[in-house]
């Protein structure tokens, strides 16, 4: 493992994580921060877009209900997804082929980061109170230039802290993944593959279906599942 290249890759992960975290809430909100987009993008950056596509889809399903309604701060799916994606993709690049066991373990290791990300977001909102007070001072002094700077301070702080969170989590997670993976064999490996191939996709589908507000939407899901499944099974003869 080349240390300098790994350090460069971690730098890229930090940049993608920080930028995606800004897109999620503070700037643009173009949905680049959605797992479905950011994980394949990370895959392109780290040289394995195919794994990124599959993993991004699964993570998108798992966090489909994470929506920023009003003042509500939901679990931060972006930092969790970038960290999980980085663990799997870096494992593939430096350790070995990322099979179902690898991404199942990575998701199990990285999923709680969505709660850590939410905690960080709440802390940042509290810290932004200082910016609001400084905006009041700028208004009282009639200095628009002073007010102009404040959003950039908020964005800069959010970028740095989210980038740090993602890169530290990805590096620690990768280490843990490499250690644990060596000990996974036999029935434990089969159990993890079952979790990754059945349990996680089914949970993701349930999360996504739980936000479909119309009963007819659920019925349509059942019908389209039956039609496509029949076609697949018939195609196999």
């Amino acid at each position, binding site marked *: 493992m080349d240390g300098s290249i790994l350090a460069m890759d971690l730098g890229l992960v930090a940049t993608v994580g920080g930028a995606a975290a800004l897109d999620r809430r503070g700037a643009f909100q173009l949905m680049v921060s959605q797992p479905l987009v950011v994980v394949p993008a990370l895959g392109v950056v780290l040289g394995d877009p195919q794994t990124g596509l599959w993993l991004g889809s699964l993570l*998108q399903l798992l966090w489909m209900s994470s929506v920023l309604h009003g*003042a509500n701060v939901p679990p931060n799916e972006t930092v969790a997804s970038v960290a999980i994606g980085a663990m799997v993709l870096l494992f593939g690049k430096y350790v070995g082929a990322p099979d179902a066991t690898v991404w199942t373990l990575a998701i199990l290791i990285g999923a709680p980061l969505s709660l850590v990300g939410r905690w960080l977001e709440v802390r940042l*909102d509290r810290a932004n109170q200082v910016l609001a007070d400084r905006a009041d001072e700028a208004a009282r002094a009639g200095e*628009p230039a002073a007010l102009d700077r404040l959003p950039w301070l908020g964005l800069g702080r959010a970028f740095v802290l989210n980038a740090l969170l993602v890169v530290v989590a990805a590096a620690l997670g990768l280490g843990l993944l490499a250690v644990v993976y060596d000990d996974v064999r036999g*029935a434990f490996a089969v159990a993890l593959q079952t979790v990754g191939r059945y349990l996680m996709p089914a949970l993701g589908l349930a999360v996504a279906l739980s*936000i479909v507000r*119309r009963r007819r939407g659920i019925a349509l899901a059942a019908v389209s599942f039956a039609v496509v499944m029949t076609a697949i099974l018939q195609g196999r003869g």
Partner: protein
Amino acid sequence: MATTAPLDADAGAAARTVGYFALWRVLWRSFFFQSATNYERMQNVGFAYCMLPALTRLYRGDALQAAMTRHLEFFNSHPYMADALLGASIKLEEQIAAGRLPPAAVQRFKRCMMGPMAAIGDSFFWSSLKPFGAAWAIAGVLSGIAWAPLAFLVLYNMFHLSMRVYGLFAGYQYGERVVEQLNRFELPRFSDRSHYLAGAFLGIGAALLADDAMRSTAAIGDGLEPVLMVLLAVIFLLCLKRKMPMLLLLYGFAAACVGLVCGLNALFPLIG
């Protein structure tokens, strides 16, 4: 809204309009609308920051101070719909600067409209367009369309950017009547339909995931994979409807699965 006699309008700025260049600057700044969100007054810094190019065109000195201060009060709305409120607020500020409205008019307008606009934006963008686009793109990726995430971005941002640009300029053109203009698009009706489509695409995604499981090393055989997938999804859906957190279900069921497989293998050794 009743008009009142001119109050303390800056005489030098009385006949000014902000001009299109300033409006484009406001549009650019609106992309950073939530950059300094805080718990006490939510998006107030973002709103004032976006309004600055217009306010500095309309006011000088004390009048500018007062204008900045009135846009630093509590504000919380949907970030995309806020552009319409920014446009309308600029229109109102022009009238305030000309002395045709009292300064409180723009504050009253913002207070009245931020809630309804947030509801429209949350319902249309967050709860409908995003799940629909994502469900479509996931079905696309699983069926081998590698550019599906890119198509999701294009589809989503077509609506997103249109709403921002149209909202700002329509807000500026129609002022307080901007809501009537936005109502013409019947966004709630689209929201309803997008839920049906999202359901249909999720069904396709489920079938493709079951197919993926059938091809994997974790295949059970005898075509039982789709049955297991549906069974698990229904159990999870029922648990989620009872407000169980996703992470609890993930770890709880993963631990149960590992325990079951390892326990059974200890009793009836089949796996080496």
